[in-house]
Structure formats: C-alpha cells, structure tokens
C-alpha cells in the first residue's frame, strides 16, 4: 500500500504545446497494418549525478515493452544506430535527422536523465524524423522508484501524440488471486509489475470493478457470511459494504458516470439485475424473469446494459435498455456465452464462449453483426475486460490448471501473460485513467 500512497510526485512540464499530429492519424483498431519505424535510443545521463545504467535500462525495457504491445511500431535495430544515438542533444537543432532517415526510421525517441538525492529527472522527446518536428516533449520529476511509472506515462503520451488517443499503460489492473490460500483482491501495473494485495478477508473475494470517477474498487466478498458487495478506497484502504441484501450481491459494475451500480441481486429468491445507488439503495429493477440474469456491462453512453441470461435455455448474452427495460437477444451461436464486456469506446462487446468445455474470447457488435473469434486453442480464456482506450483486452487464461492474467490487442494479436506465477489469478478489471 505504502508505495502507492500519493507517491507519484511526478510533475509534467509540457515543453512544447505546438504538437502537430503525426502524418495521418493511425487507425487504432487495426494495429500491425500500418506500423511506424521507430528509433528508441538509450537514456543518456545529464550533467552531475553520474550514470545509473540500471535505471536507464529499466526505463528502456518498460517503454519498449509498452510501445511493442501497442502494435503501432516496428523498432529500428539499435545495433545499426549511428553517432547521433550517443549524443545527448535533445533539441531539434542538435539532432542529426539525416542519420535517422538513413536508417529508415520515421519516428525518434531521445531522452536524458539525472539523479540527485533519490530524485530522478527524466527528459524525453518524440520527433517526426521526416518533417524534423517535435511531436511531444516531456520532463518528469519523481522518486527513483517511479521510473516504471514515468516510462508508462510517457508511453501513453507517445500514443496520444501519434493517434490522438492516450495509451492505457499508466493505469492499474485489479484481479483476484488465491496465492495466500484465500481468494483476495490484488492490484498491479498493466505490465504485471508491482502486484499488491488489497484485501485480507480470508474468505472468498470476487469480481472487482473500478469506479470511473473515484479511486475506488467494488467487489463481492463472503467475509460476512453472505456474498455482499463491498467498496474499497484504493489509497486510504477504507472499506465498507455497499449492498448486503440476503442472497447474491454480485457482478457490480459502475455506470459510466459513476453514479450508479448495476449488479445481480437475488433478494426475491431469483437472480435479477438491479441498479443501485453508490449508497446501496435500490433505484431500479432491470429484469423480471424466472431464469438466471447475471454479469451486467454498461454501454459507453450508459443507456444499455448487456448481460447473461438462460431465459431462452442456454446461457446467452442479452441487452436491456435501462430506460424502456426492453430486452433483446445478442448472441445466437454456440451453447454457452458468458462474461460480456462492452468496449468503452465503441459498439463492440467482448464475451467468452464455451465450446467442448473450453472458453474462448469473441467480440460482436451491439446489433449482433460481425462476430469474431479472438482467441483459439486449449485452455479457457474468460472474463475479458477492455482497456480504457478500447485498444486492448485482458482476460484470465487457464493453462493446465493454472490461471493467469493475459493481455492482448483488440484484434487478438500480441497475447502475453502479465501476472506472475504462484497462484490462480482471475477476474481482471482495468482502471480508468486517474
């Protein structure tokens, strides 16, 4: 907890506001189709304080990993770099753009760092090599333990400069892990680093979701002998029960404006979807059917909720209009469709379909068209959740009985494991940008 507590004293100085957008904006939903040749140079030490190669290396690894994950770049081989890579000059007039053009790079990242009494300063520039223009310049000041955070923040900025949409790399991922022997709530970076246990319920904790407005998570826990919905403030650790109706209080999902929570209650002896206030008072019942209704997920405009129901036999995804309560069926293929997650940026809904006992991740448009399978093969992949920019999906992947959190691009490419070995990690949720 401590390391999280208001520790980011990173102040960002915008060195240049005249950021021109790189060439044509890149279509974010089709990574890999149009990659930018990028030269990512090593951070060089600035002035006094001396060289700290470990710091520079860590920064480089984090930034390169994020930019690689984005799928927007093809890296120019550092072995081919010429003299300019070793020169500290960061300003436009100091850089020999012809060298970089010769290597075929169209974008260039250069940076320097200095360390004094535990504080680190990292200064970075992203250039368009062709037009020789500065696309973004940033100076970050922080503790030397904040190097990863600074690298993630700059990666987000690079994506913003090139596509107009900020990256999600400086956000957090909440998930459930049983590595203490009990299922508890954890928090980690988007690349899986710095995992922190958030609860000590020694019971069963399930299915977290982030508030879009406050630094707060909701989740279900059996701590008090019933599956109640809890709220926890991330930085203070303050915790309280939001909904403790007899029976299920599960699958809580904040509305996009953060004012309401959709969840499943079974207080009337059957699982139904409800809207409750953040104080737990019931605002509205959304479904009325003797079947099972679970797993709500909000449309970006807060007008509709996709959910899972067995009202037509097998579990399938349905959509209910929050105002008219009109229900329509979304999925017709497959025998078991569950865990829907609505893309916060468009009309695609990700879900998991079970076929021969194995779940894989699919997406489908809100109108039921253009269904696509994103993952294949053995080992269930469940509980997809979108990044706040809609570029990536996280999910839990069951490999030979060990479940871990994975990340992939929205088109299913680039899948990689992010949570560390040592337990079963499930129910990932992606934070907004705070």
């Amino acid at each position, binding site marked *: 907890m401590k390391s999280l507590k208001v520790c980011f004293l990173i102040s960002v100085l915008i060195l240049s506001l005249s950021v021109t957008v790189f060439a044509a904006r890149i279509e974010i939903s089709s990574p890999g189709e149009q990659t930018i040749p990028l030269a990512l140079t090593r951070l060089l030490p600035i002035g006094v304080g001396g060289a700290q190669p470990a710091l520079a290396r860590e920064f480089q690894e984090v930034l390169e990993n994020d930019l690689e994950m984005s799928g927007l770049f093809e890296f120019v081989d550092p072995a081919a770099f010429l003299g300019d890579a070793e020169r500290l000059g960061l300003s436009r007039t100091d850089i020999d753009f012809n060298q970089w053009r010769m290597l075929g790079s169209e974008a260039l990242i250069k940076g320097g760092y200095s360390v004094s009494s535990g504080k680190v300063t990292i200064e970075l520039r992203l250039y368009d090599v062709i037009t020789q223009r500065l696309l973004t310049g940033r100076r970050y000041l922080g503790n030397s333990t904040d190097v990863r955070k600074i690298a993630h923040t700059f990666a987000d900025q690079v994506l913003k400069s090139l596509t107009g949409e900020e990256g999600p790399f400086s956000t957090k991922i909440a998930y459930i892990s049983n590595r203490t022997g009990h299922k508890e709530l954890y928090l980690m970076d988007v690349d899986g680093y710095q995992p922190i246990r958030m609860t000590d319920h020694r019971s069963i904790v399930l299915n977290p979701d982030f508030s879009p407005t406050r630094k707060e998570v909701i989740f279900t826990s059996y701590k008090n*002998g019933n599956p109640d919905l809890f709220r926890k403030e991330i930085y203070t650790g303050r915790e309280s029960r939001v909904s403790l109706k007899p029976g299920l209080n599960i699958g809580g999902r904040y509305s996009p404006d953060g004012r309401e929570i959709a969840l*499943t209650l*079974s207080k009337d002896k059957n699982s139904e979807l409800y809207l409750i206030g953040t104080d737990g008072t019931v605002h509205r019942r959304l479904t009325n059917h003797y079947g*099972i209704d679970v797993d709500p997920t909000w449309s970006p405009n807060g007008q509709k909720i996709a959910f899972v129901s067995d009202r037509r036999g097998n579990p399938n995804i349905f959509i209910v209009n929050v105002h008219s309560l009109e229900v329509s069926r979304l999925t017709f293929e497959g025998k078991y469709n569950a865990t829907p997650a609505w893309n916060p940026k468009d009309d695609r809904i990700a879900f998991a379909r*079970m076929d021969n006992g194995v779940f894989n991740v699919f997406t489908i448009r809100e109108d039921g068209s253009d269904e696509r399978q994103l993952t294949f093969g053995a080992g269930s992949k469940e509980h997809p959740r979108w990044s706040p920019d809609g570029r990536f999906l996280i999910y839990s992947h069951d490999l030979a009985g060990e479940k871990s959190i994975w990340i992939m691009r929205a088109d299913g490419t680039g899948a990689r494991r992010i949570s560390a070995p040592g337990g079963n990690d499930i129910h990932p949720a992606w934070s907004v940008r705070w």
Partner: protein
Amino acid sequence: MQKLTITRLVVMLFALTLLASGCAKKPVAEQTTMTEQPAQVEVQQQQPAGVAEQSVTDTGAGSYDAAAAARAAENAATSGLQRIHFDFDQYVLTDAAKTILVNNAGLLRAAPAIKVLIEGHCDERGSDEYNLALGEKRALATKNYLVSLGVPAERLSVISYGEEMPLDGARTKEAWAKNRRADFKVKR
C-alpha cells in the same frame, strides 16, 4: 383304481392352484415391498429415537428424558443429513435427490430445534457469476422440496458458493458430478 386317479387329480389340481396362487402372489409381494420403501425410511428415521431411549437409561433416571431425546435427534440430523447431486447446468431435483431429501426431511422434522444452511454448489465448468446464480437455484430448489415435506421454511436458509468450493479439484466427469451438489450445514 379310479379312486386313486381321482385322488391323484385332486392332489395335482391342489398343487397347481397352490403353484398358481404362489405365482400370482409374487408380483404382489414385490409391489408391497416397493410401496413399503418409504415406510422403511420412516423406520430409519425412528431408529435415532431408539438410540435416544438408550441414552436415557445411561443417565440412570430410567424415566423418559425429552431433552436427551431431542439432543439425540439433533445428533442424528447433524450426522445423518446427506448431500444431493445435480445434472450439468440443472437445478431440477433428480429422483435420487428427492429420495435423499425425503430422508433428510424426516431427520429435520424429528429435530425441530435445529436450523440448516443449504449450500448450493456447481462444477467448475461455466462462468463464475452464472454458477453463483445456478448454485442459489439449486439451494432454493432443495429448500422448497424440504418445505413441501413439512420442514418449516424459517428453519432453512440458503447460500450459493457457485464453483468456489469444489469437493474434488480433479477435471474429470466424476469430480464434476461430485461437485454439483447441495450440502447441509446444521446450525444449532
């Protein structure tokens, strides 16, 4: 001679009727044992009461001790309540489950002081949230059947653990069948 043959015929006829009646009786006898099965269950339920009388003699009082009998019935219920199992993605009670619940209802009626928490469980296949709802439907179906058998509803509470507490962690059909269940936890 004729007398002999007549007596022979009579004997044969007698034997035949005996045989015939014997044959006819057999299915009847089977049917009665069939219908008596629930009655046997009743006998089983009363067995704890017999144990209770023994414990009365242990106390040396010799007179009928109602408290001890109740305690014995509670012990019988605590140890005698059997879990039931369900088919995949189903919360309808199977005939085998109903037979067990008839027995469980008898134990519960005999021990009116105890309350029971019915836990609904699922196998690991399927989504976690859906299974939480399914587990609750299993627990409620179990409760409703016990109520129909005369167990007061206020003595029965339910909770669903979905797929969170498997009995058998193996990934086999046998393990999954074991894990799809309703368990009974006695609260005194």
